[in-house]
């Protein structure tokens, strides 16, 4: 229970960010957050400490979100005006945040997972551990995703 409370307080924001990436409205994001935490709660018994807690949580959340994403048959990209109601530290970054979500929402579910972990400064080894992709594949996929995002931003 103590570990779970630590997860809620310290990693709740991280889990929220992941859910925002896969949900298209507030209700869906809340449902995803609950589903992620329910899986984490059940999975805590089997947490062996082989990997960092943040890596383990990322794996649980991304697995939950990708599974739910297809089950909910979400296809549309996030409309600009319904970008998540989260604040930027600096008000001038609010438009950047919306634009960021608009761009990332055009990626496939697995691509979103890769870019999210890269944006959170996870190492290629950690990303490889979470996704199950070889390290070299992670590196080459990230290169392609970054090029795709720049392309989408310019168009």
């Amino acid at each position, binding site marked *: 229970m103590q570990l*779970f*409370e630590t997860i*809620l*307080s310290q990693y*709740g*924001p991280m889990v*929220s*960010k992941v859910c925002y990436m896969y949900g298209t409205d507030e209700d869906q994001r*809340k449902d995803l*957050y*609950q*589903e992620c*935490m*329910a*899986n984490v*709660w*059940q*999975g805590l018994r*089997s*947490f062996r400490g082989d990997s960092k807690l943040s890596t*383990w949580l990322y*794996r*649980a959340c*991304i*697995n*939950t979100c*990708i*599974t*739910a994403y*297809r*089950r909910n*048959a979400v296809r549309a990209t996030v409309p600009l005006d319904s970008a998540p*109601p*989260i*604040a*930027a*530290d*600096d008000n001038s*970054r609010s438009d*950047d*945040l919306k*634009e*960021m979500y608009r*761009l990332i929402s055009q990626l*496939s*579910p*697995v*691509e979103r*997972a890769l870019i999210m972990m890269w*944006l*959170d400064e996870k190492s290629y080894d950690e990303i490889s*551990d*979470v*996704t*199950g*992709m070889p390290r070299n594949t992670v590196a080459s996929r990230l290169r392609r995703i*970054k090029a795709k*995002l*720049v392309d989408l*931003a310019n168009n």
Partner: protein
Amino acid sequence: MDIDDLKRAWQSQNMRIDKLEEQNKQLKERLLDKSLKSNRAKLLSTYRWLLLIGLLMVPFTIVSFSHLELSPIAVWTMVAYFLLMSVANVYVYYLIYDIDMTNHSVCDNLQRVINLQLKRHRIRIGSCILGIVIISIFFYYISQDDPSLVIGGIIGGIVGGLIGLRKEREIKAMISSMKKDLEDALSE
């Protein structure tokens, strides 16, 4: 917007901590009183019930149909059907149990979920086809005095079949999308 802008925007995010704290408080309470369960847990519970019902239908079929004085072939065919469905439910139960969102990698988990959905889809189709055959045999015997039962059965079968087919098409589309996600993930 370039990649550095994207990274700065991502790292500048400030989740509404107050909203999260309230949500977390309710979440903890619901997890402790077991009113919140993951979809996996709910599915496991559903299949435990299906297994129990399937097994209970065996003695129920034998006892109730002997009152109706049906042919032994009809009775034992139905018993065999319920036993077969129980075996299928046990198989699916273990496929669901085997899914571990916290310890399996994304690709591994996707593969298992695809496998589960495919098997459930095939078992549903198979059980519907078998069920139609079994019910037809059943109706053949009980409708000899009252043909209107057959008409009711046929109408019910058509309506149910159409609803089921639509649902199965959606599930097939979902499985195809998941397979595409997995191929995309595993490609170089």
